[in-house]
């Protein structure tokens, strides 16, 4: 079966939702078809029930949000459904900083992005409006904004107020983390009810792409073909254009062919480069599946002199952006710094420190004694840079039902990053220590991430077609009508949550996509 459309978007996550929404505004009447391998989970009415099952039993709060035979080594989330990983994201919408775009010119590291900060900042504002972000202006002048946040900030809970006062004794300025959560009714969704389970928001206050898809479907602005796996892109005879996307209905195996004026890959850091490799497309540079990126992280707990009440709003946090900047000429280290309420080290326990069994009143008494002092969870995402050997490859030893090899991601950091690893770790632990010492505290439970978070890359953008896959708008250098949007295009992954940047970059691409139709 052949389906004709104007724009065929492969992948149904947050980038696809934002692109489709903006495209439908820029080009009313344009035919947009979104093809998503996973299924739609649009039963909002069941979300409170799913939340409760998740709380009580640890059951998947998004039933059916994965595909059993569609996985790969190094992929950090199994979610494949309409809405993608942003179905269950925490809604944190930090911006990168100007330094992320100018690493090469400022520090001689990695690569510069092929766009200016002013350009990106404009699209950050747009992303914040479309997602519905609540936040407060930051205390640092470098974080100036051209527009206010669309919504008033999430109020700091009592715990976070106490922690802010505590943390700022160290001389480090903090603010509430901006979030795609409504502090008042916004875009047809309700205000946050502080349910403490943002990964499954039962009220709709936290943005997830299913809302946008439902709006677009209701207005008949898109076609959504879920449960449909795109397996190959077909090139024109001269190789300069993509003429079709070959797909299969996962349920039943019907073969489909999408024919479109423009194709857009919005399948994230794993599945966008995976499809290009399967299709032998957009890869004259050999850069598809290279420079797989992300940021590393170190976390810890800090015991402090404060009476806290764990459970008030564990999802909200403080952030300091002080360490987003690194003065040229000083040892390079850039990281964010987050603080949450915590109950670590003061949960009820069965045995005391001496191994004595506790029962009944003894458990409660022991628990109460250990909660006299409070705890904070701290974490730093720090900037690391991948080498060209940081790859996504096709693993011919692992294939899906249809015989297609699955992806395997293997992160490799560049020499400069490896050389400064010890100093970076010492710096971050020093910051944790400074926070602790400011209030008679004690650092414990230090842990380091075993993976790179907020992964990106694989189809990196750039101006040189020999070292990049696409230009700054995501248009592939090899095929005039093939775009890649979202996380896969990022040359580096910053040192804070990436989703807002993925969305901002996608929105920046939208007019170029529209022009191509």
């Amino acid at each position, binding site marked *: 079966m052949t389906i004709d459309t104007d724009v065929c978007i492969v992948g149904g996550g947050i980038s696809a939702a934002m692109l489709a929404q903006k495209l439908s505004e820029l080009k009313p009447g344009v035919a947009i078809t979104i093809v998503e391998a996973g299924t739609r989970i649009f039963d909002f009415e069941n979300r409170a029930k799913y939340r409760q099952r998740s709380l009580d039993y640890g*059951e998947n709060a998004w039933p059916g949000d*994965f595909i*059993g035979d569609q996985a790969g080594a190094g992929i950090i*989330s*199994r979610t494949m459904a309409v809405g993608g990983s942003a179905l269950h994201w925490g809604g944190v919408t930090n911006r990168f900083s100007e330094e992320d775009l100018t690493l090469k010119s400022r520090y001689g590291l990695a690569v510069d992005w092929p766009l200016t900060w002013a350009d990106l900042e404009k699209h950050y504002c747009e992303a914040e409006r479309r997602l519905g972000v609540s936040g407060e202006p930051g205390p640092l002048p470098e974080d100036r904004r051209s527009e206010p946040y669309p919504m008033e900030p999430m109020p700091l809970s009592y715990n976070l107020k106490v922690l802010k006062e505590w943390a700022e004794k160290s001389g480090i300025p903090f603010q509430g983390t901006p979030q795609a959560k409504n502090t008042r009714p916004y875009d047809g969704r309700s205000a946050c009810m502080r349910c403490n389970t943002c990964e499954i928001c039962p009220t709709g206050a936290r943005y997830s792409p299913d809302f946008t898809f439902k709006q677009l479907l209701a207005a008949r602005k898109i076609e959504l073909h879920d449960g449909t796996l795109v397996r190959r892109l077909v090139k024109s005879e001269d190789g300069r254009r993509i003429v079709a996307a070959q797909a299969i209905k996962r349920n039943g195996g019907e073969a489909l062919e999408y024919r479109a004026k423009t194709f857009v890959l919005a399948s994230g850091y794993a599945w966008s480069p995976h499809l290009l490799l399967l299709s032998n497309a957009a890869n004259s540079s050999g850069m598809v599946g290279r420079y797989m990126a992300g940021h590393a992280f170190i976390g810890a707990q800090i015991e402090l002199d404060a009476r806290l009440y764990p459970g008030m709003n564990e999802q909200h946090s403080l952030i300091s952006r002080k360490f987003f900047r690194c003065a040229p000429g000083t040892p390079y280290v850039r990281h964010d710094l987050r603080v949450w309420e915590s109950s670590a080290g003061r949960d009820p326990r069965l045995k005391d420190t001496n191994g004595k069994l506790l029962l*009944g009143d003894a*458990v409660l008494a022991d628990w109460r004694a250990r*909660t006299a002092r409070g705890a904070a969870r701290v974490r730093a995402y720090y900037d690391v840079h991948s080498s060209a050997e940081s790859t996504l490859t096709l693993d011919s030893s692992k294939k899906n039902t249809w015989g297609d090899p699955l992806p395997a991601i293997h992160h490799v950091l560049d020499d400069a990053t490896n050389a400064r690893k010890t100093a970076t770790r010492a710096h971050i632990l020093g910051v944790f220590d400074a926070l602790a010492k400011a209030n008679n505290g004690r650092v414990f439970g230090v842990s380091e991430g075993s993976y790179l978070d907020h992964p990106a890359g694989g189809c990196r953008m750039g101006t040189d077609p020999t070292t990049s896959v696409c230009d700054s708008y995501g248009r592939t250098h090899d095929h005039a009508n093939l775009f890649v949007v979202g996380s896969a295009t990022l040359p580096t992954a910053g040192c804070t949550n990436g989703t807002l940047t993925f969305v901002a970059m996608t929105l920046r691409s939208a007019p170029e996509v529209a022009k191509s139709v």
Partner: protein
Amino acid sequence: MSLSRREALKVLVVAPGAAGGLKSLGSSSLQAGDRDQAGDRTVAAIAEVVLPAEADRVAALRRFNDWIANYHEGADTDHGYGNTRVRPTGPSPARNYPAQIAALDTAAKAQGAPGFAAASLEQRRAILEAAIADANVERLSARPTGAHIATDLMGHYFGSSEANDLCYNAAIGRDACRGLAGSENAPAPRATTVGPRK
């Protein structure tokens, strides 16, 4: 809080069927109706030892019972983020309870009591300490594991939002949807609807 017989009866009657066709958690030497009652009394007797006196034990047992009754074997669990993994829930923890309850009764009889529920508080404590040691349980889990019914009951209670409020003596309401208003203030003192057990 003390359990009424009526409340105690409710504790485990629903659980066995929902947990995979088990008919009773009590001694197999008793008649069916008696078995249910005996099992219920045993679990209530466990609760008196392992749950704090300030807890609403009736409510705690009811929630434990509901949890067991509504457990779904083979359900997809949260596949997580980072080191992601798809895996189903395992067999119901309640499958292990009949043997554990029977063992408690056996131990009580060895000490001269007619059964665990009729043993003195001190005897019950000693029996449970030995049983927990035998089960090699080292820590409490908010979700029952089947390792031992006593620690499962404890973990389920102490991991609850209600227990959190009790510990901090504050109406935190961790698992409730509470709205944003007033969250900048310290939570109000916990409403004392259940007094200390006399």
